[in-house]
């Protein structure tokens, strides 16, 4: 099948699940940032734990190749914090903004327009970033297993147990 069609189908499945879980909404995203409603955190961490197990299983069997993004402290930390500031204002992330528009929350349109302008602005500053922030604290393509020297299945088990504990706590607190 054509790779573009596969992309579309994958996106439709993702968008469907995002809407079903009600995680596309501003109220849910701000609810998490205000520590009042952990729906999006439950959704994300559930996806991460299942994905973590599946990807490492397939990778250990030699069926897929992992694709690790390099850790560059300057870019990851400063870019991450800037992202967070914008996220708190717009209340949608790049993927969910399109989904929010799909369920009729059309204030997402303003956010999407802003995102396009932001992408264009970043393209203008990229040569500068490449000389500065993108070189600060470049640790290469490392994983938690590389950093700690602990086998990846032990880390996955610990993260899964920790996440289940967190879920139990969310439910007990009614978050």
């Amino acid at each position: 099948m054509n790779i573009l069609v596969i992309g579309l189908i994958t996106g439709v499945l993702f968008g469907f699940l995002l809407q079903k879980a009600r995680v596309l909404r501003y109220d849910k995203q701000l609810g998490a940032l205000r520590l009042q409603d952990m729906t999006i955190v439950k959704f994300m961490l559930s996806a991460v734990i299942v994905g973590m197990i599946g990807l490492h299983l397939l990778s250990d069997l030699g069926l897929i190749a992992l694709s690790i993004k390099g850790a560059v402290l300057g870019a990851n930390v400063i870019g991450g914090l800037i992202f967070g500031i914008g996220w708190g204002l717009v209340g949608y992330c790049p993927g969910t903004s399109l989904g929010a528009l799909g369920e009729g929350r059309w204030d997402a349109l303003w956010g999407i327009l802003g995102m396009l302008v932001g992408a264009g602005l970043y393209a203008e500053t990229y040569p500068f970033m490449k000389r500065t922030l993108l070189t600060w604290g470049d640790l290469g393509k490392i994983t938690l297993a590389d950093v700690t020297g602990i086998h990846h299945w032990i880390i996955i088990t610990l993260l899964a147990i920790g996440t289940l504990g967190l879920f139990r706590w969310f439910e007990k607190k009614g978050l």
Partner: protein
Amino acid sequence: MKQLEQGSWSPYLAGALTGVVSVLSVWVSGKYFGASTSFVRTAGMIEQLFAPERVAKMDYFIKEAPVVEWQWMFVVGIFVGALIAALTSGSFRLQAVPDMWAAQFGANSTGKRAGVAFIGGLILMFGARLAGGCPSGHGLSGTMQLSVSGYIALICFFTGGMFVARQLYKGGAKP
């Protein structure tokens, strides 16, 4: 348990299914979830309409060419999937101002909401590109692979977001 809205699915279930879809995506097409690169490509496509020669010479648009590829269709799919889920569950609603926003800033603050969403989107995307990804690329795909950059970025996303949410809803009542 937190009360679920009618027609919605548990975020744990929908999240776990999202994990399955993301693993299948890597297995079938070798593609990891991500969204923010597509905003760069789209910005490039728009700029190409006005200044094609300039775009062709810009480093960042050479790195992320302004073309439709897998991820671009994936992002379009998120819109379509959310639309289908919203229409079939009766939760589609045209809304210019989110409920939580209206409770804090008034229901007639459409202009203010548009401005804040635009600025937020701009800041967010600049940060996402600097950080090398958004909650899809870093938050889901990165953390699933235990990549250090994914965990750093995700923590910074939430740190920045919680700070802004706190300022924005200072003194706001619990919804």
